[in-house]
């Protein structure tokens, strides 16, 4: 076996080698040749198509990259296609005109693999650098940034002259710098390029490393200095990133634990069915999305907003039934609530398994939950960011309900002294049921959020239940702030341990630390002190 190296550079080389004679050729026959080409041949064809310099091929190449290029079985003519009902609408790859509809069986898809996609991306980069569309120019510059080649240099420079938009221009400067490194330009120009790249941060590291073996010896010190400076900077960002990841993990733990902080922390029920409430919330999200997908696809970005009240009501109702049906007979016998709720959890799991099947259900991410944006040297993903925001919002909303509303006052009165509360005219059974429903409902809306980052399967709840209990116990039973601080500190601790000892050992160490911590403070981080506790 030999390792053949196929890189963007090679593709681009082909592109320009052909440029001399291909300029002005009709791309249509080239497209038609794709019908019989294997992956390697197709790669060359893509380069040739790009070399025609004809901007009208851009949509067809895009379609190719998406896997939407087909050839007609009857005459091996190649078309882009898009779905039109059960049929396909064929589109001429060059003119962009419709060529009528055909059955799916009349055409064959032209296969595309990663190499081809890379080649297409590089080709598109060259073709769209001067596109009138600002976005297209920006992504063209990005494409070159990601797959730099000496040959793209002239194109970038030509485009730079005409570019007026500041951001695009800056991006093109960077693209020029990375392309320049592998070209045969002068040492001074390269030195300036290295400086520009050093400012790119982490994404520049790859380029610098890749030329480190071949670069002019005179530039070596500059290169090493640039690499070192990026790495130094990264070290600092690493710290920030760990904190961020820790907060993100902490917010997930907080979400999972916050409902439990009510049912277990405030009411004293060892609620082993808590995880299943989270799972029910996730399945509610799935159901909502199913309905939206079938009836109103346009609302998909709103699906989570719609799922929130649905999940809250569904799980709240289930919680209400569980409290009335089982738990109300068990007040004052906390350890027995553990057994009964565990039974409930088994039944709920198996019920979901029977109804929906044991496999994962697909819960989609709305567009505002997908993707990421860079912040300095780190990448912040939208779903994690929204989950942090979401969990803190729930936390403070709950805190408000507990501390500032009449209902919260009643609830605290009942959990502190049931007899006294009932003799003061509070309907304790009603408050109990509502409190449990509230805790369950909050677990349900946590499920909505967790459906965005985890499997939606009948086992979902099981994977959170132990962690949730750890958080509540670590933070101190009966104290919401304890749950917040507990969740965040466990999350951050975990993320700082993970890089040095690995994920598995990290998790074990966190558990051991919790056990040791409980020895030191048997009632958690924020324990109530004094006589009342012992009574």
């Amino acid at each position, binding site marked *: 076996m030999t390792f053949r190296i196929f890189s963007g550079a090679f593709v681009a080389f082909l592109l320009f080698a052909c440029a001399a004679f291909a300029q002005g050729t009709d791309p249509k026959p080239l497209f038609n040749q794709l019908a019989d080409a294997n992956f390697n041949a197709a790669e060359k064809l893509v380069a040739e198509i790009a070399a025609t310099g004809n901007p009208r091929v851009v949509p067809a190449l895009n379609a190719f990259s998406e896997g939407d290029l087909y050839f007609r079985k009857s005459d091996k003519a190649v078309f882009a296609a898009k779905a039109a009902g059960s049929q396909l609408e064929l589109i001429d790859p060059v003119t962009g005109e419709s060529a009528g509809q055909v059955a799916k069986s009349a055409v064959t898809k032209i296969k595309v693999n990663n190499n081809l996609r890379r080649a297409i991306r590089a080709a598109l980069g060259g073709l769209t650098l001067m596109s009138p569309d600002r976005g297209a120019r920006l992504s063209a510059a990005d494409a070159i940034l990601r797959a730099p080649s000496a040959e793209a240099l002239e194109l970038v420079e030509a485009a730079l002259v005409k570019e007026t938009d500041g951001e695009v221009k800056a991006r093109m400067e960077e693209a020029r710098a990375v392309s320049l490194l592998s070209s045969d330009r002068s040492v001074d120009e390269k030195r300036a390029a290295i400086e520009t790249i050093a400012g790119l941060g982490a994404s520049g590291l790859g380029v610098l490393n890749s030329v480190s073996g071949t670069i002019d010896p005179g530039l070596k010190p500059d290169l090493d200095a640039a690499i070192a400076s990026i790495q130094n900077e990264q070290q600092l960002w690493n710290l920030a990133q760990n904190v961020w990841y820790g907060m993100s993990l902490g917010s997930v733990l907080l979400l999972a634990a916050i409902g439990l902080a009510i049912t277990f922390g405030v009411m*004293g029920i*060892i609620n*082993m069915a808590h995880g299943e409430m989270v799972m029910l919330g996730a399945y509610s999200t799935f159901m909502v999305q199913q309905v939206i997908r079938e009836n109103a696809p346009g609302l998909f970005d709103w699906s989570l907003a719609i799922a929130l009240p649905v999940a809250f009501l569904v799980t709240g109702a289930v919680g209400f039934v569980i409290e009335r049906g*089982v738990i109300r*007979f*068990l007040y004052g*016998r*906390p*350890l*027995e*609530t*553990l*057994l*009964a709720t*565990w*039974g*409930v*959890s*088994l*039944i709920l*799991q*198996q*019920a979901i398994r*029977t109804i929906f099947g044991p496999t994962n259900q697909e819960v989609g991410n709305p567009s505002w939950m997908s993707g990421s944006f860079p912040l300095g040297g780190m990448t912040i993903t939208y779903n994690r960011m929204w989950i942090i925001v979401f969990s803190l919002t729930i936390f403070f909303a709950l805190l408000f309900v507990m501390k500032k509303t009449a209902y919260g006052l009643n609830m605290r009165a009942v959990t502190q002294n049931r007899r006294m509360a009932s003799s003061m005219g509070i309907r304790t059974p009603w408050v109990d049921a509502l409190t449990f429903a509230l805790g369950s409902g909050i677990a349900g809306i946590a499920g909505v959020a967790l459906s965005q980052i985890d499997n939606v399967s009948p086992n979902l709840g*099981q994977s959170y239940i*132990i962690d949730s*209990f*750890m958080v509540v*116990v670590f933070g101190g*039973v009966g104290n919401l702030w304890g749950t917040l601080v507990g969740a965040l500190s466990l999350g951050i601790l975990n993320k700082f341990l993970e890089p040095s000892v690995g994920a*598995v*050992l990290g*998790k*074990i160490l966190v*558990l*051991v630390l*919790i*056990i*040791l911590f*409980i*020895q*030191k403070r*048997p*009632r*958690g981080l924020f324990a109530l002190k004094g006589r009342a506790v*012992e009574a």
Partner: protein
Amino acid sequence: MITGFILRALEGKIVIAVGILLAVAIIVPALNLLTPPDSAFHIPTYVMALMGKYLCYALLALALDLVWGYCGILSLGHGAFFALGGYAMGMYLMRQIGSRGVYGNPDLPDFMVFLNWKELPWFWYGLDMFPFAMAMVLIVPGLLAFVFGWFAFRSRVNGVYLSIITQAMTYALMLAFFRNDMGFGGNNGLTDFKDILGFQVQAGGTRAVLFAMSAFMLALCLIVASAITRSKFGKVLVGVRDAESRVRFLGFRVENIKLFTFVVSAMFAGIAGALFVPQVGIINPGEFAPANSIEVVVWTAVGGRGTLIGPIIGAILVNAGKSFFTGAFPEFWLFALGGLFIAVTLFLPKGIVGTIQHGWNARKALKAAADAEKGRDAGAAPTVQQVQAAE
């Protein structure tokens, strides 16, 4: 002194239970080995293996009853002690394979060979010797319980907090044993055992002896548990369960009392694990799963905690149910199990044996009260010993 201690254990119900267990220890293997397969009295190996497994579970439930039923410590981590005992036995059995492993390496178990281990880790030393391995079956779970309990009871961690950290303990151990680098075979665990003390593990005779040993050890542990609970120490134990601070203010060292019980119980669990492994043929980190430990709690609750006999009956009934349901109605097993938990906690909080006993005691108390009414001045009230015997 020791005889007094043991003799005290032999109260009515316990004698009956021990008698039944000893009889089972003899009769079941005899029916398995001596009757022809088509005889109506024949007990197939499959059923004997199953019953052997139940007996191990019963011993585990008995161990839990000692700490939960009598001392009020709800351990959600007893599966860990069971698994550790099992691992000690499993490691012995692995070493017995010797050079008959697939790679023919005389020192290293197969899983170490194909993961490129060069030498035996230190904690595997000595486990090729049966007496040492058996000592480890007691010492490893006992030591873990001792260290864990030493810290936890001294810091007065109790109630829910204790339950949760025992769960954390078994969960952490599960994750640790899942790691291949630990040298315990990772998630595949230890399996494919060849022989024990020179006898083939799979042979009918060995199985019969293992079965008999399970019944015998269960009987023995039952006697020890009964002796403990019926001594003055046992009364203190119940005192700890019902009014811990009163025990403390009477001058007892509650942490020592709990620690002793916890360690004894862990050792029982270790024995159960050690007997379990050669009979089912595998030990792996799944045994540490927190859900398993919760299930043990359920067996104990179903049978009746604080009764010694109850957990044994509970473990056997629930597991027989599990065997039946997972074969006959696989889809409904979890519904049945879940329903059982709820029903028992709601309607039989004392468990099966506890409820029967309670009813019986109430009748007896009624009668005693009537008797006392008749002849209070004549001093006809039952003596302490009689009342104790009725407990």
